[in-house]
């Protein structure tokens, strides 16, 4: 099988730049998720590989050979689309078999039967797409993409239009299904959990630029920038503007008027004027009791999300933070005055101007 390589690929439509020097390698059998906010250029990137757009600069290689000049049908690529893109006038069987027919493969019926058994759609093979549920449509589209044993598999947010329960099932099933094909897989998604669950590595794309490519746990623990940190986590990370100072040999910063001790780590060397302090809602502790390093706050509302209580807190200066904790750990309700703490090592610091993360906090390093 072959490796997929993108080397400094550029693409713009008029004044809008969709890809700026994107370089990425996907090994055979590897799943790389392309993740980013909407409009960040994920889909355009996939479409350049598939041959629907031509890159303005750079090269795309499969197994070491450039494919930018090859027409789509000769690129050896399988693709699944967000809107399924099934052929409406053909049965599910003919949809799946369409690729095999084009190459004149033998044993079409056997192969279609095996693939549909794997994806659990044997019972709907005779149906037209309009008679299928969204889940069945997506499985048919996946079968169609996988059946020709493509060297590169492109999945454009395939679970977007599938209902929550099915999406969860597919999230469990997909990784083994995709690895079985040993293709180089690029998986576009807008859901960070989906990216973390499915991918071996995640490529974070923001405004056409790859800002970080790393393993899921690495990105979550050590986001390269504020923008990346904000994308991973639901609810998303709390951010406060701080000016760290050294006091009695300790690095501290005032958050909403309260002086908080931060983890020194390698920070003293990387001291900046102003920073963004980031604390994930899951690392925020809400208590009834004050004390050193406890920020007074008022609870605006409590909303249960994903088996956790998400607490909207308002500080004296009007800024807001979120805390996510186990429902039984919360001893207060809306309109109560409480105190907020976090462990020094839970704080991430980012440069105010560039947004880049500063230093390494020890606990995160160990993760």
């Amino acid at each position: 099988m072959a490796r997929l390589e993108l080397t400094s690929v550029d693409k713009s439509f008029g004044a809008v730049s969709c890809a700026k020097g994107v370089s990425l390698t996907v090994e055979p059998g590897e799943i790389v998720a392309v993740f980013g906010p909407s409009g960040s250029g994920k889909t355009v990137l996939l479409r350049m590989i598939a041959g629907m757009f031509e890159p303005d600069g750079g090269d795309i290689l499969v197994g070491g050979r450039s494919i930018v000049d090859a027409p789509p049908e000769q690129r050896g690529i399988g693709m699944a689309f967000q809107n399924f893109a099934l052929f409406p006038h053909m049965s599910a069987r003919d949809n799946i078999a369409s690729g095999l027919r084009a190459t004149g493969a033998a044993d079409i019926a056997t192969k279609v039967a095996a693939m549909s058994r794997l994806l659990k759609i044997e019972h709907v093979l005779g149906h037209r797409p309009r008679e299928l549920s969204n889940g069945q449509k997506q499985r048919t589209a996946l079968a169609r993409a996988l059946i020709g044993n493509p060297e590169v598999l492109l999945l454009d947010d395939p679970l977007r239009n599938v209902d929550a329960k099915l999406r969860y099932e597919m999230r469990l099933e997909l990784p083994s299904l995709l690895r079985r094909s040993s293709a180089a897989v690029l998986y576009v998604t807008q859901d960070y959990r989906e990216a973390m669950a499915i991918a071996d590595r995640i490529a974070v794309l923001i405004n056409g630029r790859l800002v970080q490519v790393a393993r899921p746990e690495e990105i979550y623990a050590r986001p390269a920038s504020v923008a990346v940190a904000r994308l991973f986590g639901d609810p998303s990370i709390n951010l406060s503007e701080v000016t760290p100072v050294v006091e009695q040999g300790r690095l501290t910063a005032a958050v909403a008027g309260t002086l908080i001790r931060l983890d020194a780590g390698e920070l003293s060397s990387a001291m900046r004027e102003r920073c963004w302090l980031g604390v994930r809602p899951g690392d925020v502790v809400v208590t009834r009791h004050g004390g050193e390093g406890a920020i007074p706050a008022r609870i605006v509302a409590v909303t249960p999300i994903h088996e956790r209580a998400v607490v909207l807190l308002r500080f004296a200066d009007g800024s807001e933070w979120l805390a996510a904790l186990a429902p039984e750990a919360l001893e207060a309700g809306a309109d109560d005055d409480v105190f907020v703490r976090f462990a020094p090592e839970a704080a991430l610091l980012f440069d105010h101007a560039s947004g880049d993360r500063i230093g390494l906090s020890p606990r995160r390093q160990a993760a």
Partner: protein
Amino acid sequence: MDHSSLAGRIFRGIALALVLVFFMFPIVWILLMSFQSNEQILRIPPRLLFEPTLANYEALISGQLKTAAGNLQLTFMRNLMNSFILSSASVILALLLGVPAAYAFARFKFKLGETIAFTLLSFRFAPPLLVLLPLSLYYQQLGLNDTYFGIVWVYQLIALPLILWIVRGYFEDISPDIEHAYRLAGHSWREAFTRIAVPLAGPGIAAAGLLSFIFCWNNFVFALILASADKQPVTVGALAFVTASGIQYGQIAAAIVLSVTPTLLLALYAQRYLVEGLSLGAVKG
């Protein structure tokens, strides 16, 4: 919402009946006229009950028109045939040229694309009479006067813009991803066009084809000037009913019925496809 009372429903029924009578009356009246002799038609007051006669149809089909001034030769059946040949040939040619062009306009953004498409549409804006004089001079020079090909060519002014603009809309409604998927499955763009785009735009192509057939069928001016008696369609041939001894209303009515029938049958047959529309599932997520 259906908050309507009984009175409301009765009123609606009466209003609908009035509209129906208003629109259907001329058609029914022509049908009745076609089975009457000229004397019966011109009777005052007109009667709904009469002894039907097939004389009008006989005259048209045999080509012998009996008038007070004597017998006249009619070429109605030949005209009908001409209409058929001219309209069908025009529509087929327009489809062959227009469908690929519509696809190109729908799928590809190219320089002057919109301008070209609009120019083609603008052929419909010019009054045919203004175009005709120069055109007939050219045709005489080129030897195209009084040929089927010449008229079919001119008819492209009618059929091509219609097909181009209607079918283009249908192509634009098909998600390009469906064609991309077909190409990634290993098919060339030609196959994607013939096996995916054309079948999916089928209803639109049928609608556009039917409309342009009707427009070609009903055209009068082009054929009047550019064709002589043996190439003329029914619309021009109908002039023969205005004779020295008066207007042959019965025959006109019969001629109308005969010339409307093919288009009507075609429309009824195609209706199925027209209504089916593009809602074939999966086109939209």
